[in-house]
């Protein structure tokens, strides 16, 4: 069971990690840059298993994978948003950061509420309440089964998607 860290609508990759902090490929440095300006206490208070809950278009803007990596390196169990920007969603899936779409959760929880997410079924529990997030499907589900895009390619190459006739 983690706690909710709540963010608004249109949280851009620049808010998650401003361009000025992307000058590294070191995962621990990326961890420290997460929400460094938008929410400076994030890195010091987030615990493994916590859940980011956001509104619409989470991760909009640049294609920089530094953004989902920095969230993942903080041990965030899942990002639940009303919608995601396309490249962010794809990057998150590729690196094994669970992302779930759910329309209702956003208005129903507050910062610090407890929350847990079953990233395969999309089932979300907060306190006494349950919510049905959209479970991953298609390519996202296939990649999730391997853990990450790199693990999938290492294990099966593109046949993993072609043979499965993923759609």
């Amino acid at each position, binding site marked *: 069971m983690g706690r909710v860290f709540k963010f608004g609508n249109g949280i851009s990759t620049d808010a998650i990690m401003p361009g000025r902090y992307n000058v590294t490929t070191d995962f621990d440095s990326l961890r420290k840059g997460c929400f460094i300006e938008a929410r400076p206490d994030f890195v010091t208070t987030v615990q493994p298993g916590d859940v980011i809950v956001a509104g619409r278009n989470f991760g909009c803007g640049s294609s920089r994978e530094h953004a989902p990596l920095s969230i993942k390196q903080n041990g965030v169990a899942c990002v639940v948003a009303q919608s995601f920007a396309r490249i962010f969603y794809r990057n998150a899936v590729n690196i094994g950061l669970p992302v779930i779409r759910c329309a209702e959760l956003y208005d129903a929880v507050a910062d610090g509420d407890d929350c847990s997410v079953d990233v395969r079924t999309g089932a979300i529990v907060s306190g006494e309440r349950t919510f049905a997030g959209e479970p991953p499907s298609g390519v996202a589900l296939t990649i999730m089964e391997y853990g990450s895009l790199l693990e999938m390619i*290492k294990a099966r190459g593109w046949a993993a*998607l072609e043979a499965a006739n993923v759609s």
Partner: protein
Amino acid sequence: MGTLAEEILSRRVGRQVHAGETVVADVDFAFAHDVTGPLAIKAFAELDMPVWDPARIAFTFDHVMPANTVAAAELHRQIREFCSEQGVTNVLAEGICHQVLVERGIAAPGGVVVGADSHSTTYGAMGCFATGLGSTDIGVTFATGRTWFRVPETVHIDVHGEPAPGVQAKDIALSVIRRVGAEGADYCAVEWSGETVAAMHMDERLTLCNLSVDFGAKAGLVEPDAVTFAYTGGRGQEVHPSNPRYARTLEVDASAIRPQVAVHPAIDNVQDIDDVAGTPLDEVFIGSCTNGRLSDLALAASFLEGREVHPRTRTVIVPSSRRVYMDALEAGYIETFARAGALVMNPGCGPCLGRQHGVLGPGERAMTTSNRNYPGRMGSPEAFIYLASPAVAAASALRGAITDPAEVR
């Protein structure tokens, strides 16, 4: 049968595909730049495979070129080392990826291009399917020459009417974003068409496709025509939509569009110039992959010729590539800018991502011809960013405040 995106992807995979299907497709070209490249190299290295085709890979040094910190220099060094190990010779430090690679002809009608940068939609102006991916995806493409796509639905934008003087492709795109919102084309391709687009030169088409990602599109495309083939020197394949089924069609009357300004803090917070005119500005930036091409600089020079920028407004002008720089030099624009008191910087991304120079302080207001006004994008999260066309930016630099270009002409 299909939209332009469906036609290109069908041809690529050798069977008819439709929106919603997933395909694994060969790509013609893949690239990364000095911010996304190092992570792509890291992902690629994990695969323990050779590079698919060094001639069809490029790295550009543009976001932080020349390096401004030891950390940035170290990332550049890693990229150079990788390229020399792998025999990649397209190591380009002569401007923004999306301009340099277009000039080098990596995108052609009917092609498929991927880049580790969201504005890779730009290449769709050539009538190819081009999209931005993350570093891991690009690292995998470096090794395999392929990637997966969900064949997108298409938003069809039909633009007609002659834009008023001083109204550019930028204003048309911002007016569309104003109507459909920042997620208006999420996961979709955008097909820009109609008589107004047909009449546009390549620079303006590049602006339309570039900005497509900023309302969520996976790709922005213009059907290849005589303008396209003149630009590519005949390279590429004829490809056309055939009995397309669009998710949505938007009619745009370009003759009714006023100069548009996207106001802090969101790209879809767009207003007519009349509603924001007079707002004082600390900085004006003319450049970026959206509007740093020769025709943009020509327009800016037509305003700044024989005049001086307002003393309160530092004005930074960045040609998008070495070729643009040299053409601007020859045409006298660079001298015009220097005489007007503007700061002309080396080709590259410049102040667009707040990482190198032209950084904004708290409370400052900037107008830029680039594409993103998220808080913190160009420096302090407490700065205010306004996006507009080169005409509006140049006019505003002269007055030191947001200005309708018609007033300065």
